[in-house]
């Protein structure tokens, strides 16, 4: 399997700040690869390094084996879907989509055909004569997608494309993007701060924090075996137990994390870790209820199914509880 994009010890400085700090990753051809992290973690900078809008201060970036440094964006076989869509306001939808073909000198009937085909691919076949200002956010997003895909790039870069859409539309678009990816078979590199999005769509995810990649793995491994405290906290919800509290619970001071869904109310379970606390808050989340328990300077959260527990049987605020979880569900963290 060919390597589509390879970062080797890439660093990008802005003055004294390292926006990207010694990042080494490789994205396989045809993969749906996500770069996940909070704002300012370096993931967008990495994307822009691949696109060619920034140059690395150190290290090398290879695109399909070829060193990319010094190659301008307009000569890379990479296309980007921008966060603000960046549709050209003075052109209609068709001209926007066909732009990449026009500037390469493709003949008129060919670029019209290909642009219309790309628009049909994103279910906007009827909209070719409209102007971007006449479209909704979701429609603009699809035009941006079509505009990038019509050029048949080998790598598609997506910079938080769904951030501006409301929840329902976002979920729908996630499904459509995944379908597109399966259909086209090209490499997708996807930047997002939404860990749910990254987990549900990707083959592999690189988790960024302060310019570094903390872990790069498939979603399941990231969730069940986070390597660092940051990953445990950022990917899914988790209770992160520091060394002092760990000392009280387990007897040794190695910090660990335990997911809320693995915690239960203690009823003579065997082979479990236990702790006592007082219920601080009960939150209704539709299918489940989330219960926050104060175990002394720390809130532990766990969930109970609302089909099993009726409203009156749920733990009440102020109630004393003992919580427990299986030993093997604890994920040890590097300090």
């Amino acid at each position, binding site marked *: 399997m060919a390597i589509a994009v390879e970062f080797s010890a890439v660093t990008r400085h802005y003055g004294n700040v390292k926006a990207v700090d010694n990042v080494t990753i490789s994205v396989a051809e045809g993969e749906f690869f996500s770069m996940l992290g909070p704002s300012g973690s370096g993931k967008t900078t990495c994307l822009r390094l691949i696109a060619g809008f920034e140059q690395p201060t150190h290290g090398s970036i290879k*695109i*399909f084996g*070829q060193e990319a440094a010094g*190659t*301008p964006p307009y*000569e890379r*076989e990479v296309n980007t879907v921008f966060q603000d869509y960046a549709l050209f306001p003075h052109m209609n939808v068709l001209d926007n989509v066909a732009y990449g073909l026009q500037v*390469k*000198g493709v003949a008129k009937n060919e670029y019209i055909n290909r642009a219309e085909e790309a628009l049909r691919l994103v279910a906007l076949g009827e909209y070719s004569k409209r102007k971007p200002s006449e479209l909704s956010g979701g429609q603009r997003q699809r035009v941006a997608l079509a505009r990038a895909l019509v050029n048949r790039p080998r790598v598609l870069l997506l910079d938080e494309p769904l951030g501006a859409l409301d929840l329902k539309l976002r979920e729908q678009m996630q499904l459509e993007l995944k379908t597109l990816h399966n259909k086209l078979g090209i490499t997708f590199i996807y930047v997002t701060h939404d860990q749910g999005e990254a987990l549900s769509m990707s083959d592999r995810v690189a988790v960024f924090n302060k310019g570094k990649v903390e872990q790069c793995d498939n979603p399941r491994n990231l969730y069940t075996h986070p390597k660092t405290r940051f990953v445990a906290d950022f990917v899914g919800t988790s209770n992160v137990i520091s060394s002092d509290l760990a000392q009280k619970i387990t007897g040794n001071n190695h910090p660990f994390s335990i997911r809320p869904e693995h915690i239960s109310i203690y009823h003579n379970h065997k082979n479990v870790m236990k702790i006592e606390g007082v219920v601080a808050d009960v939150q209704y989340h539709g299918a489940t209820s989330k219960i926050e328990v104060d175990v002394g300077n720390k809130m532990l959260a766990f969930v109970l199914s609302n089909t099993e527990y009726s409203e009156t049987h749920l733990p009440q605020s102020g109630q004393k509880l003992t919580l427990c979880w299986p030993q093997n569900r604890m994920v040890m963290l590097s300090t």
Partner: protein
Amino acid sequence: MHSLIYNATTTKPLSRWLSNALYRKNNLFLFLLLTPPLLWFGIVYLGSLFALLWQSFYTFDSFSMAVSPDLTLENYRSLFDATNFDIILRTGTMAIAVTLACACIGFPIAYYMTRYGSPAEKGFFYIAVMLPMWASYIVKTYAWTVILSQEGILYWGINHLGLASTLSNVLQIPAIGGNTLATSNLGRFIVFTYIWLPFMILPIQAALERVPTNLLQASADLGAKPAQTFRRVLFPLVFPGVIAGSIFTFSLTLGDYIIPQLIGPSGLYIGTMVYTMQGSVGNMPLAAAFTVVPIVLIFIYLAFAKRAGAFDAL
């Protein structure tokens, strides 16, 4: 075999090469963009300004009417001689008077426009104020020479209203009056005020627009009567806009030399003095020294204005 580089079938090699070269050298591009305007300004404009400033240190021999490049501070010292200083005082006083008048006349216009105008009215007022501002300076001055002349419409109106004696009484007042309206300081004052008025209105209007209505509503909510709200909330917030407008009226009056020639009594202003000195007299050094006066005064005024927050209101 895929290659990273697109097959450039239709690109023009030279422009593409240039574009690639500039892509790598961002600073070079910036430099190329800036050089022509900078050269122009640096050499043509700033250069001539410095040349002028430098000339103010030259010596002028009133016997031979010749300028020699011997450096001296004599020109600046002579600014404080009675006649010269008179000129500066005269110009400065008029500048201040005009500023006050423009503020008083302009404020109600700006206030009404912003606070009470319907959207249509606002647009109308905006154009109505902007248009005279951009209407030709010389045309407006010409119009006033006709209006103020003894055969002009103002005199006709005054006579018809039976105010002729009032007018001649006013014209007797020493500093304000003169022989006729057109040769009186009053006339000159009216014309100056008229010409610079839009420059005062627009900054005030901009400052008024920036005051959020909810501040005034909060003031009313807390029990202040409208006049109190105006005095304690609105006016302090708008005052920087007034100062901003005054920068224009003050400096424009200080440097003007057409209106003093055409309207009003004889008596030089800084502008006309400069013009005369460099023209017929050929005393460039003194003319240059005189030009420094408004520059210095304006800078001092700007420093005060900045402290009063006027720069944010521009």
